[in-house]
């Protein structure tokens, strides 16, 4: 019986009623590499800016842990949830149930496999792969030897890599001489690159698909004294890399944005929708917002440079 009572008091329907402090859950993947750490950082920033709401931030190493966290948040009586999936499909069913239970669902970056989110703020990993690859092909003038560093085997990685490979395949001049996983980890990337370097006398560029790995690659190049002849394309807009692009560092001619700050936008959206009463705001809030991935160039770099961010 207790269940339904307290439930009534906090249920989604009565959300927005003045005086009653609202509760929002933020569910994100655990910070096991730079980008996810950035997610956490921006989540904290954004929640701090909305003190009128009670925030619950929960990270998860794997889907089951995330599902459990979401279930717990429901019993905590949250009015809305901002979810960045560890994996899309596994989280979809629970998200659907929570949505049915009247909780406002904001889905960030990795989309559910069913349209169960009230607002979906999508990051486009395929575009990430495609655009970065296209830039690399262009910069190499359609021909050259490249090395590829993949991330932790996962949907995100698969989307990025396969999209990029498609582009490279379409350009016969481009020759992939080495490909291995750097686990989105600087240290691992450095080791892998070290091996690639001794195994390949000729490499023109490295497609690193993530800025953590890009830095690892750089370390390896420097150590092997080949930092002059090889340039790197990372990804996700880590502040250090953006700075290097801004400073016209030949090693980092460009970078691809995949801003972890998108979680902040999701959080802000949830906050403002709840304040105005979600059922009203739903009418004019777009259900699907696509966050474009941009090519960072020395010209536009300053717009993407946040020195005080941890990422």
């Amino acid at each position, binding site marked *: 019986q207790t269940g339904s009572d307290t439930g009534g008091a906090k249920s989604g329907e009565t959300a927005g009623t003045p005086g009653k402090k609202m509760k929002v859950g933020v569910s994100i993947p655990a910070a096991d590499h730079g980008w996810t750490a950035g997610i956490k950082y921006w989540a904290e920033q954004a929640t701090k800016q909305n003190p009128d709401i009670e*925030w619950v931030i929960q990270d998860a190493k794997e889907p089951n842990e995330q599902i459990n966290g979401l279930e717990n948040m429901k019993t905590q009586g949250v009015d809305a949830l901002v979810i960045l999936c560890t994996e899309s499909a596994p989280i979809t069913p629970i998200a659907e149930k929570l949505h049915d239970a009247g909780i406002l669902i904001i889905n960030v970056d990795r989309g559910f496999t069913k349209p169960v989110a009230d607002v979906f703020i999508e990051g486009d990993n395929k575009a990430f792969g495609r655009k970065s690859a296209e830039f690399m092909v262009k910069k190499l003038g359609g021909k050259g030897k490249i090395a590829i560093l993949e991330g932790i085997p996962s949907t995100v990685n698969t989307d990025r890599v396969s999209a990029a490979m498609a582009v490279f395949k379409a350009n016969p001049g481009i020759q992939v001489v080495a490909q291995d996983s750097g686990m989105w980890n600087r240290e691992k990337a450095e080791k892998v690159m070290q091996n690639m370097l001794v195994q390949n006398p000729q490499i023109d560029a490295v497609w690193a698909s993530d800025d953590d790995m890009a830095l690892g690659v750089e370390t390896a190049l420097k150590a092997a004294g080949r930092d002059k002849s090889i340039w790197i394309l990372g990804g996700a807009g880590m502040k250090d890399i953006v700075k290097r692009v801004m400073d016209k560092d030949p090693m980092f001619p460009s970078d691809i944005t995949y801003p972890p700050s998108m979680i902040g936008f999701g959080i802000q959206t949830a906050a403002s929708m709840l304040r105005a009463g979600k059922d009203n705001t739903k009418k004019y809030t777009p259900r699907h917002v696509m966050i474009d991935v941009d090519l960072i160039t020395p010209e536009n770099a300053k717009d993407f440079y946040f020195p005080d961010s941890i990422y």
Partner: protein
Amino acid sequence: MKRTNILSEYGALLALVLLFIINVVTQGANFLQVENLRNMVSQNAAVGVIAVGMTLVIIAGGIDLSVGSLTALCGAASILLVNKFASSGMSPNMAILLSAIGAIAIGTLAGVINGVIISYGRVAAFVVTLGGLAGFRSIALVLGNGGEIRSQVPSLQDFGFGGLAIPFVKDRGGGPVLFYWSAIVFIAIALLAGFVLNRTRFGRYVIAVGANPKAAEYSAINIQTVRVAVYALLGGLVGLASVLVGAKMNSVGTGSVGLYYELDAIAAVVIGGTSLRGGKGRIWGTVVGVLLLTLISNMITANHIDTNWQGLVRGIVILVAVLIQRGRKENE
């Protein structure tokens, strides 16, 4: 020199009760919602089922680090199977049933492989299953080529979130609160395993092999067979667990599902008072261990503990839980 007192016997239970009380105090009504208590039992049902099997393996003097990866492998297989069966015009329920059997079979097979290499190959269980940890995950990734495998059978998810309605209780949405099948399976498996361990000949052999293989051998027990059997059993349970996970997620992320299950399962077993030296242990303790782990996560969410600090809290609570049981010399 032995000192077996109530604490060393029921310390884990005490820890659970304490944590429960703490939660009641800090969360109040929220925590006592039937729905929340239901979640306590069901949330780690999969890990629970695995932990029960792990208990037998550990009592027999072994260990298995491959269960997490095997969950992903069996899970991937079960989803592929259920899709295949369904697309071949089989009734959804039939397809689910058969795919479940398939997953369990694959798990058992993997367990047998582990067991054979360990007992006949005479290789330390830790390494063999460490190989499995890497290998099984890899096969799963290949099956799902690095990504997730989605079920085309919607009713699979209905099973995942289906169960028996708890009488007189409604959830926030006003719907019935279901006691999930996963929880029921977990409880059933635990009871069964407890029975096997304490009431059957096989259970007795498991203890003997773990406690003193030589004595067991001199007593005409075929220790090899017993060893293989426990790993096979665990493998089968992992297969079962993978079905529970897959149903709940209506899919399997081959790179992510089952990560760290091995650590959670082993932690639950040891928290429950089963000695890693083998030769003694209790199933109910493992169940308590699983519930304890679930309770910790629940508490962390409820009390807005900063994600950075969560690991510390988790670590300390686990430590305290086992420290309460200190005094059992054999842990030395």
